[in-house]
């Protein structure tokens, strides 16, 4: 393309028109903090990991007591051991992938390692959401089929809740709460991905396209 080559000559001959930053000003910049996307991804990812892990520590005493009284305390205990082992594995991979992000890699590799780091956290969230849904279904089903015991354990009679239709109301409430929680999570991730990764993903796709 003649026009681009003509432009190339001009481009190279006009370097003196570029701004000049002094030695001292460059020196000052070394002390400034980065605001790169990698930093934000790290902060958000650590916050997510902490959020999901902390959920297991803030389960109200009453809930734990209820589980024990319903006879599923032991199952809960063992499933928590499995959970925390899985958390450990995720944190290991997150750290390993995060460490592999190097600005000195080629563009495609750099994008790939950022996306891989994010993917680890995404799978971590998928894991948690699936476990949340799965355990809700199992527990709700268990409560539903043992509703009279639940009615007794939670002492609904003294609170004036009629036993008739109680199981249905209980299960519907659980389902609605579950849907709202999942809806909020989807919204949160849609925003996080929309803000942080839209440009990176489209650039990565652009690079991939060349490999066709």
């Amino acid at each position, binding site marked *: *393309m003649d026009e681009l080559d003509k432009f190339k000559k001009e481009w190279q001959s006009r370097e003196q028109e570029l701004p000049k*930053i002094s030695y001292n000003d460059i020196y000052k910049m*070394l002390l400034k903090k*980065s605001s*790169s996307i990698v930093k934000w991804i790290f902060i958000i990812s650590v916050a997510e990991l902490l959020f999901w892990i902390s959920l297991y520590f803030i389960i109200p005493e009453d809930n734990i007591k209820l589980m024990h009284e319903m006879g599923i305390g032991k199952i809960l205990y063992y499933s928590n051991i499995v959970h925390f082992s899985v958390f450990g594995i995720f944190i290991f991979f997150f750290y390993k992938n995060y460490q592999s992000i*190097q600005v000195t890699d080629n563009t495609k590799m*750099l994008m790939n390692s950022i996306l891989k780091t994010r993917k680890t956290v995404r799978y971590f969230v998928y894991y948690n959401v699936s476990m949340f849904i799965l355990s809700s279904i199992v527990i709700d089903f268990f409560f539903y089929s043992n509703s009279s015991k639940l009615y007794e354990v939670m002492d609904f009679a003294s609170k004036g809740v009629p036993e008739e239709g109680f199981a249905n109301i209980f299960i519907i409430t659980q389902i609605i709460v579950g849907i709202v929680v999942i809806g909020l999570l989807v919204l949160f991730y849609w925003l996080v991905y929309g803000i942080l990764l839209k440009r990176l993903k489209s650039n990565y796709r*652009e690079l991939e396209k060349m*490999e066709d």
Partner: protein
Amino acid sequence: MNKELEHSFVIQLEKNQNIAHKICRLYTNDQDSHNDLFQEITIQLWRAFPKFRGDSKFSTWMYRVALNTAITLYRKSKRQISTQDFEGVSFKIKAEEYDDTIEQQLKLMYGAVKKLNDIDKALVFLYLEDKSYREISETLGITEVNARVKMNRAKEKLRKILNP
């Protein structure tokens, strides 16, 4: 030791700062964003500097880190999306050297390059900097054949923008 490293880094960046400025001009649309990006490039270069072994030229190494920062790490601010300040591109021409037509053509070309997507912009930038297809492919992490194909497509896009 650290002072020595800082000094050697700042000296080299000061000497090669044009590379970063040219990238900043292509990837931002106003002076504040230009300065933001320049600062982020400086920070990223400085962080990576201890691993710079000197087996390649500082400038070669800088192209990669600076482009990676502009394309991947830098978060564009909102004001950039709304402004299309091609006038601010600053091709200040000395009247006796160039006539208005050339000036106009250059402005149009610069505007067209700025309209390309981030990846095409990087390809065109490296081409304008007279980099070989091998260097372009190594910087972006694609094959040489693909770099050529993509470059031809980018040229085609430029032609279409200039002659709609």
